[in-house]
């Protein structure tokens, strides 16, 4: 009986010499979930994935699939399949041989193999490509064939290492749907590594945001977006990025010009607070928390417009998303504002200040 496996990482650490690539990560990935690991390059996400695959051995720590310790199990013996960034189709084999290679290794007879391959090909719309070699296919077709490999193997865990980073935007959209369909059809836990927060947001049940070898926050996309743990998360997730404006703090209030934000008790000793505004929640014309800005550029995105502006007093960048720009033109000085409930407060070091009972920034 093949079933999706829960993955438990326990104190996972990988050091290369003095360089720490992955630093003491403990994570519970529930069985059957689509989990994305997202972070900028160098944040250790690929190393983490390769350790889950068994291609790298952790310096310290354990990994469990369900309750079975897999730490010392070789990649060959882990019940998983992997889709690689550079696709890694074997160039000397036809697509059929490529898709069926894992089955062949496991000794499945050719007739059965062919049947599974044909089913997978039909599902992924690569039937016409099966007898070709990979170099005759486009990048998108190649990645479909690579998915076909995972599809026929029916793994308990499917690892995807930036599978779309070399593809163009239209193909990415198609494949995004393909990944999610595959996730529905296969009873498997998906771990998807990407540097593109948009991919992570659109596909995942849960997202782990990585930074410098650690997981900064692990949660579902809505939580990550609406309730980030740090300034780093708030600015990394979401497009355009969250605007950060510095406010002076004096005990109970953080001020800037005429506007002020009440500070929770635990943040009363801060001298400066960083206030985060999601561009989507900013409104031209003001609100409970206001900032004066100069409009620089207006970018039409179809229904929405992104207005790029800079603050009047210290030239910090500030973007907002709006549907109506009829009264705006570059050079205008406007007041933008947000509801108190929609702003995030961060300490100078980037940690989130969550309001206690008295604050107005509770979500």
């Amino acid at each position, binding site marked *: 009986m093949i079933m999706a496996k829960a993955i438990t990482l326990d104190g996972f650490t990988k050091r290369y010499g003095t360089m720490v690539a992955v630093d003491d990560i403990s994570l519970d990935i529930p069985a059957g979930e689509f989990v994305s690991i997202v972070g900028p390059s160098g944040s250790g996400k690929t190393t983490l994935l390769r350790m889950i695959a068994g291609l790298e051995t952790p310096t310290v720590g354990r990994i469990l699939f369900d309750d079975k310790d897999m730490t010392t199990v070789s990649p060959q*013996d882990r019940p998983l*399949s*992997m889709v690689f960034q550079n696709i*890694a189709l074997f160039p*000397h084999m036809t697509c059929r041989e490529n898709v069926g*290679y894992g089955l062949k290794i496991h000794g499945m007879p050719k007739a059965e193999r062919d049947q599974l391959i044909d089913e997978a090909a039909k599902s992924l719309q690569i039937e016409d490509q099966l007898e070709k070699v990979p170099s005759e296919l486009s990048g998108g077709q190649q990645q479909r064939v690579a998915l076909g490999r995972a599809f026929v193997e029916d793994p308990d865990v499917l690892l995807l290492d930036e599978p779309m980073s070399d593809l163009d935007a239209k193909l990415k959209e198609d494949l995004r749907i393909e990944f999610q369909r595959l996730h529905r059809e296969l009873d498997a836990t998906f771990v998807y590594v990407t540097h593109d927060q948009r991919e992570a947001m659109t596909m995942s049940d849960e997202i782990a945001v990585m930074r410098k070898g650690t997981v900064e926050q692990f949660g579902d996309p809505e939580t990550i977006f609406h309730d980030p743990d740090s300034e780093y998360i708030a600015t990394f997730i979401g497009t355009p990025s969250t605007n950060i404006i510095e406010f002076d703090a004096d005990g109970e209030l953080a001020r800037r010009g005429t506007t002020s934000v009440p500070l929770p008790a635990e943040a009363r000793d801060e001298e400066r607070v960083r206030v985060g505004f999601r561009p989507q929640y900013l409104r031209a014309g003001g609100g409970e928390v206001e900032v004066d800005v100069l409009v620089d550029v207006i970018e039409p995105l179809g229904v929405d417009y992104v207005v790029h502006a800079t603050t009047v007093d210290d030239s910090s960048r500030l973007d907002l998303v709006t549907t109506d720009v009829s009264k705006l033109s570059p050079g205008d000085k406007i007041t933008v504002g947000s509801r108190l409930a929609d702003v995030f407060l961060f300490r100078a070091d980037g940690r989130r200040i969550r309001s206690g009972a008295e604050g107005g920034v509770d979500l």
Partner: protein
Amino acid sequence: MFERLVGGPGGLVPNAVQQRLSAVALYAIGALVLLFVLTPIYLMVVVALQSPQTLFSGGELTLIPPTLTLNNFVTLVEQTSTVSYFLNSVIITVSSVFLSTTLAVVSGYSLTRFDISAKTLVARAVLFSYMVSPIVLAIPLYVIFFRLGLLNQYVSAILAVTAISAPFSIWLMWQYFQNIPIAYEESAWARGASRWRAVRDVVLPLARPGYISVAIFSFAVAWNDYTMVKVVLSDESLYPLTVGSELIFQEVFIGWGEQMALLFIISLPPFLVAAFLQNYLMQGFNLGHGE
């Protein structure tokens, strides 16, 4: 520095003329090289295929023979040990090619894929040992084989010749394996293939141009080797063509025709190998960049 003046886009000479000129120059140089290479070969063939009667008729070397004959080859086969020397050459060469290529594949793969301490140093040392003149190796090897009691056997000739070709073969294979992304193997491992299986199914097919180049190279070394074989073999019945031809040339009944016929026999296998495997050779020395 003359590009802006006469060549390149916007030069003084129009593009079409430039292209025609470069084509003409290419063929002219090609013809010149061909002339240098082919003249001695033509002389060899033309002398080998003539009887002594026509060879110097009229006091000059006959360059366009009126009749052709295979008598020279018949003389070699019937009255000398040419066939036996040829077989010895084949035995030594085939064994050495096999040994050298296997060594190169195994060492090259290990140097590329395993964490061996100071492996760059090891690889450089290997390449450096190729720079050493064969005669410098010959005497120590003689002593070693003498102590081991291996002198005067095929195995000593095979090992000695392999010692000459192996360093460069290993270095070439090491370079070639570095150009095969490890992702292919990882992909195979993640799908259940053992390391051996992955090497067999994935690495070796991808490395084919590499190891064929290595085989061609070690073939050339082994087939043409004179020094090492001369040092480690003293039994005439084990001599390959290179050393054996010396003895044949000393026979009184061997004239120019027979000499050239023997050289023709020696030259034929390398020519065939180069002709049939040259595509692989180009790919192999490209180290996979040119595909």
